[in-house]
């Protein structure tokens, strides 16, 4: 198996390339020096303290959390509607409608950002965190549909028919039978859209007005070299947070697949 070893070596080298920047994060977050370069100066936790006392940063975190939570919930609700309609019903112009809803997936984000910016400006709507939520729901919905489609697809339609035959209404069938079965999909879709929204920059940059989100704040700090170690500390915490969230999402996704008796076909997206 010479080829196998060759491929494995390559894949491992590729993982090193993928993780190279991220491994640097904690190194500089605990480095006792303002310049982000080697050699390291010594161990400190002062950047984490500075971060904790930075009021602007905490405000940006709060904005981001409001935006990400709202976007995740709204996008997942829209995703449930769309995925249920797409997997269960045949209706006219299905391709065109689903194509439009999924369009943000294949549209450069800057286009979504400027076109929304233009509309809000034209209507004279002030830019706040609510306008960012509008944009984020738009780009998160296609991801939620992709995740929920596979949950709804693996549903056995006879379960639903049985419930209706036994006297349940359409709504109670949905609530009692379908919802519990797709719950793992819903949880992973919530987590994925939360993560996407939390990390999204360009739409927030255009639509946030005077209320920066976390990425917009981070971007503005790159201009001040003295602030960068603090950002490294923040980045370290963000990495830990997203790894945890992803591990939870992955757990629920697998449980969902196990529940419906399907075969595991791979990761997200």
């Amino acid at each position, binding site marked *: 198996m010479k080829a*196998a070893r060759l*491929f494995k070596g*390559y894949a491992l080298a*590729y993982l090193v*390339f*993928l*993780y*190279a*920047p*991220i491994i*640097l994060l904690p190194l500089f977050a605990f480095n006792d020096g303002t310049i*982000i*370069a080697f050699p390291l100066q010594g161990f400190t936790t002062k950047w984490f303290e500075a971060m904790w006392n930075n009021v602007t940063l905490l405000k940006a975190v709060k904005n981001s959390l409001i935006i990400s939570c709202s976007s995740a919930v709204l996008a997942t609700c*829209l995703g449930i509607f769309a995925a249920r*309609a*797409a997997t*269960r*019903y*045949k*209706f006219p112009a*299905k391709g065109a409608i689903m194509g*439009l*809803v999924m*369009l*943000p997936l*294949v*549209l*450069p984000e*800057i*286009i*979504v950002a*400027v*076109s929304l910016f*233009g*509309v809000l*400006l034209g209507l004279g709507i002030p830019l706040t965190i609510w306008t960012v939520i509008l*944009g984020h*729901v*738009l780009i998160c*919905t296609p991801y939620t549909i992709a995740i929920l489609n596979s949950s709804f697809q693996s549903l056995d339609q006879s379960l639903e028919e049985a419930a209706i035959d036994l006297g349940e209404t359409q709504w109670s069938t949905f609530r009692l039978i379908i919802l519990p079965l797709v719950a793992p999909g819903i949880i992973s879709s919530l987590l994925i859209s939360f*993560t996407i929204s939390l*990390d999204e*920059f*360009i739409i927030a940059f255009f639509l946030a007005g005077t209320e920066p989100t976390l*990425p917009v704040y*981070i*971007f503005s700090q*790159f201009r001040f070299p003295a602030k960068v170690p603090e*950002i490294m500390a923040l*980045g370290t915490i*963000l*990495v830990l947070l*997203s*790894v945890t969230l*992803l591990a939870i999402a*992955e757990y629920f996704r697998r449980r969902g697949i196990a529940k419906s008796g399907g075969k*595991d076909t*791979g*990761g997200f*997206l």
Partner: protein
Amino acid sequence: MSLQGLKRRRARSDASSGLMLVSPPAIYAVILLAAPLVLLLLYSFLTDGYLSIIWEFTLCNYVGECASMQQNADGTLTPTTPYLGAWSDPVVRAVMLRSLGIAVAVTVATVVLAFPVAYFVSFYVKPGRKSMWLFLITIPFWTSYLIRVFLWKVILGYNGVLNSGLLGLGLIEEPLTFILYNANAVVITLAHAYAPFAILPIFVALEKIDRSLLEAGQDLGESRLMTFWRVTLPLAMPGVVAAVLIVFIPVIGDYVTPQQVGGPEGRMVANMIYLQYLRLDNYPAGSAIAVSAMVLVTSVSLLFLFLNRRFLKGSKG
């Protein structure tokens, strides 16, 4: 009632339930996606009135010379700052071509580098451990994009990790300067950022390949390499095509990477749109650039799909 009538009635109620269900996301997308895109197109044909739009139809945001207008008290317009339309301005044209070039380079680099990884995970990793590999591959992608881009600046810089490492090993005598603040840096950073987008669709396509076909190829006397070339690769093409589009489309509109690591010669079309919209406050000119970029992306993608049509026949991936 006849069976036929029953079927027809069922189809009709299916259609109305489906439409009812799909209407919330559909209406949302119409109001916040379709309408804004139409407005963007409309803006690009109107006249700039500095921070406002003047409803005077013009083609000059695309071709020829344009001028921002100042509205006088009596309603007449006085031309103020002149500028060139998107297609006539050599600067915009150069940036557009560069964005295309960078996006193609990133796409080729990402897909070529990613293919062996997807192949390894699909063909050599034990089924039980595949999700672990995919998980490992996707984790870096979910960490803050901005911070990753910034860290590439730290790696590629004059006193950066790469240069000090290579200097320390004695492999180079002077720091390399061609890897930061130019198009190369943009390509490296974006190839890193979009890696999982390329790996996952190729992996899915490879997983779908019936392994007995490969055995058949080899039983019929083809070498391993020829089997790969004549059986595996054509069957994996839908995945490769998806990977190419998924990487190419967002990359051409990327703002952060060219802004952070690109320097003056690495600027791309999104930076141009930003400049027009938020710095110069010229919405019609910005819209014209955005629409042109969208047309460029769409036509290149459609051309690519057309060239690969024989691989996509009969599959929906």
